[in-house]
């Protein structure tokens, strides 16, 4: 595969994962299956594009003419035929602009994930929309599955810089009201907002019949707090300062963080939201592979 000209899209890292497409498809098909049981089944008559047949596709959509011409099986796809509307909600607040000793910030890591997921879903003909937010919506790309859309997604991600304070609950409420129902919502964030408010907002999505996946990004330094000497810590979002001797509070800090993530894990589980704690020192492709494999196993 040719080298990509996109910042957050690395085909070689995706391509080297064998069966990722299949695995992704299967995983997404789970959503599709769920959606098929919904009242919104059927295809649009507006032809969109061909794609190669893979076992399991409905042979009713096989393009026999193309088969006759090229002796290859193609499935005809139409604009309204996409089963899934997926929304990737990427946190672009200032707190995401952090890395300790790792190579990428949480925001960059989130961008890689968003690009990768978008590519995978577009590749399996699912519509994917990308929304970046902090205390407001920074950009909003409605779901589509065309290569041109994918190109727009990549370009928007590259242009976006994290900067402002996070206030995700109002944003989520607004999106929950406006996004089409019964979609797949993937939230990529460090979730640094009032926890109960965030959970309420997530509950709003669930109420609107969306299926939610919460990818909680944390830098390893945030999880383990490896500092040793006295520092004056400066809040990335508010510029507040606090002098701390790390040796005296490390255990308490780790306990606080664990309680924070544990509450998300439990509340998400209660609301049928998939919660994935994602340290940014794990390669994103590895993380996705592991996650999707696990998900596939659960859905079988």
């Amino acid at each position: 595969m040719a080298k990509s000209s996109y910042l957050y899209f690395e085909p070689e890292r995706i391509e080297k994962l064998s069966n990722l497409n299949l695995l992704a498809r299967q995983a997404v098909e789970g959503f599709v299956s769920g959606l098929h049981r919904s009242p919104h089944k059927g295809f649009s008559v507006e032809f969109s594009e061909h794609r190669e047949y893979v076992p399991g596709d409905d042979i009713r959509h096989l393009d026999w003419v193309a088969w006759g011409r090229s002796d290859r099986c193609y499935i005809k796809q139409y604009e309204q035929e996409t089963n899934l509307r997926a929304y990737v909600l990427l946190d672009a607040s200032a707190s995401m602009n952090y890395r300790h000793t790792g190579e990428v910030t949480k925001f960059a890591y989130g961008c890689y994930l968003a690009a990768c997921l978008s590519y995978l879903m577009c590749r399996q003909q699912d519509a994917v929309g990308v929304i970046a937010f902090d205390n407001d919506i920074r950009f909003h790309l409605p779901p589509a599955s065309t290569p041109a859309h994918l190109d727009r997604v990549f370009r928007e991600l590259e242009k976006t810089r994290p900067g402002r304070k996070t206030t995700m609950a109002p944003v989520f409420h607004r999106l929950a009201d406006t996004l089409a129902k019964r979609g797949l919502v993937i939230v990529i964030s460090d979730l640094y907002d009032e926890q109960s408010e965030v959970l309420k907002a997530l509950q709003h999505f669930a109420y609107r019949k969306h299926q939610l996946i919460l990818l909680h990004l944390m830098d390893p330094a945030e999880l383990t707090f490896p500092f040793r000497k006295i520092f004056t810590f400066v809040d990335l979002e508010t510029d507040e300062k606090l002098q701390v001797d790390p040796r005296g509070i490390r255990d308490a800090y780790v306990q606080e963080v664990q309680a924070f993530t544990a509450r998300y894990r439990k509340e998400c589980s209660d609301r049928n939201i998939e919660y994935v704690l994602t340290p940014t020192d794990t390669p994103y492709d590895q993380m996705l592979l592991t996650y999707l494999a696990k998900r596939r196993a659960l859905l079988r």
Partner: protein
Amino acid sequence: MILGLTFATPLLLLGLLAVAIPPLLHLLARARAQEVLFPTLRFLRASVEKTARRRRFQNVLLMALRMLLLLLLALAVAEPITQALGSWVASPRYAAAVLFDNSLSMGARQGAATRLDRARQQAQLLLSGTDKPALAALLPTNAGAAPRELTGRLDTLREQLRNVPLSFGRAPLAAQVATALDLLRNDTSPQKVIYVFSDLQRASFEELLASDALARDEDVHLIVVHANDGPVENVGLRDLRVQGQRVVGQTLDLTAVLTNSSPTDRTVDVRLQVNGAPVGARVRRTLSPVGSEGSSATVRFRLPLTESGPLAGEVILEQTDDLLPDNVRRFALDVASGVRALIVRGPSRETDPLYLAPDALLRIALDPFGPQRPWSVRPQVVESDRFDPASLQAADIVFCTDVPAFTPEQADALARFAAAGGTVFFFLGPDVDPANYNERFVQAIEQEGGLLPGRIEAAVGEIGPSADATPIDWVDMAHPYLAGLYDSLNEYLDVIVQRHYRLADSARPPRVLLRLETGDPLVVHKAFGSGQVVLCTTGASRRWSNLPMARLFVPLVLRAALLSRPGSQAPESYLAGSPVVLRPDLPPTATTASLDVILPPDDSGTSEVVTVPVRPSKEGPVAAFDRTERCGIYQWRLGGTGESETPVRGAFAVNPSGAECDLQPFDPDAFRQGMRNRGLQRTYVGADLASAHASALTDAQGANWWDLLLVLAILTLVAESVVANRLRARADAVPAHLNPRLRDEHPPA
């Protein structure tokens, strides 16, 4: 001392300042905390609030523990000692010999007290403190033959110590240390110490440094407590020399030596006073500071002797200073009246010129001015054939010049005259009969091998203008008759002789004053009884030699005459504490007589009289007097008469030790190092008893490498902490992208 503790290394208590290190580091770390970006403070704030109480307690506890650790380390390296200081000898029972320096230099006043006062106070501390010895002996350095023994009655020693007076003598430290060692050697105490309470005066301690006594007793400790308290201002009269013949008509040369012990230049005025009246003008001298060139100077006075009899004088330094006794130096002399010289001459030819007469040149040499002018020597001339032995009673010296022969009576009279203290001077001219001389003076007189220094043999050599002459090649320049005349031997060698008598070898060789190139003696001298015999192997005329015309002839015969006065050579002064031998002019049989010695007045003006017995001796009646502790003029008179108006017969002066006026002290460290260089390791010096004990205590414990190692360990720990902190700081170094000040230049990704 802290809580009853003393410290072997109190200097290391400075380490207590290290207690301040933990709080300082804490404050510094807080002040220098670096800023670092972090996504959110919510967890930090919660953690801080949750742990605040526990952390505060832990921090305080940790800091207190660290400060306590440093406190204990500082105390540990300073080596706290709870045992009594005096028990440094590791035994509650130890014997001490206390040498108390009461020499003159201890009288130097420094501030309100003298060195003696300070030393006495420190010695009292030793004898009365809790660390006092079990047995002790008090040995004042200048106490004569005081009883010396170790005793447990320290209260008695304290009383004795209170009464030790200042002496005017020099401290015989080496001898006293030897005495102390003898005392301690006989004692069975497990530990033995010699304490010296002194002023570390260089003169005395250099002597102690050179002594071998201590090296033989290596188990004895020597502790020196010096009473110096800074420099003193003092100029002293170190010495006074009196030169010249103590005979009426002569002039004495008095040379006084001044020494400055002050750290600054000093200008002083010096004057001479005789019998209470000033003589001549005062002399001013400026002396450089002690230790530099010019810190000593000499002052000369001339004193003409116009009267015979006792004479007492003093050289006085007029300016006052910190040590007064050395500002005056006294002398006492017995000035003899004119010397009575008798010239017995041989026959002379009427046609001979004056210079060939046997007595003419001799008479001129003895009395160069004649009767017109007062002079010390009045010679009388008598023909040899008219020589009456009775005339010797009125003579101090007799010159026999070219006397052909002596009768037995004359010879016997001359022998008795010499034995009684008179001087007989022979000149052997051409008319002398050697056989008669040998018979009368050698064979007939058994005392001391005869009156002559040797048997006279035949005359040798020819006379006349064409005859050979023999020069002299050696002169005894140290003999009182010839000393100090000229600077070099060559200046004496202007005597040539054509004819002389030879002397046979004698079992008792005489002292040769002049010697011919041939090896034959020209002038010889021997003591005979209390008197002197001088023999010249050639004549006193110009007939056989040029001796009467030579430059040494006049002083030779004149000095022989001046020195012939009995008693005129007694010392002009004695040092304090020295014994004095008095020689009263009494008949040899006066064994029951005594002398009354009148001591100089004391501070209250009272003069004590001490009676000393007269005893016979080979040199006549003598009286030994040893109570010369006080400086001044002592007078003496015949005692036992019961009359206080008995006339004074003599006087002598007693002066302080000249060395004592040099107050320059030994550097304590240099002295200790010097003793150690000699192998005397157990020598300790301190400015007071406590510091000397502390020094001894440290040393008694041997070289304490533990201290050094402990200090090194602490330094290593500190270094390790610094290095670890630096490495940790490097590890914790804030990347540029997390530095709030650099976030714009270094975006995180």
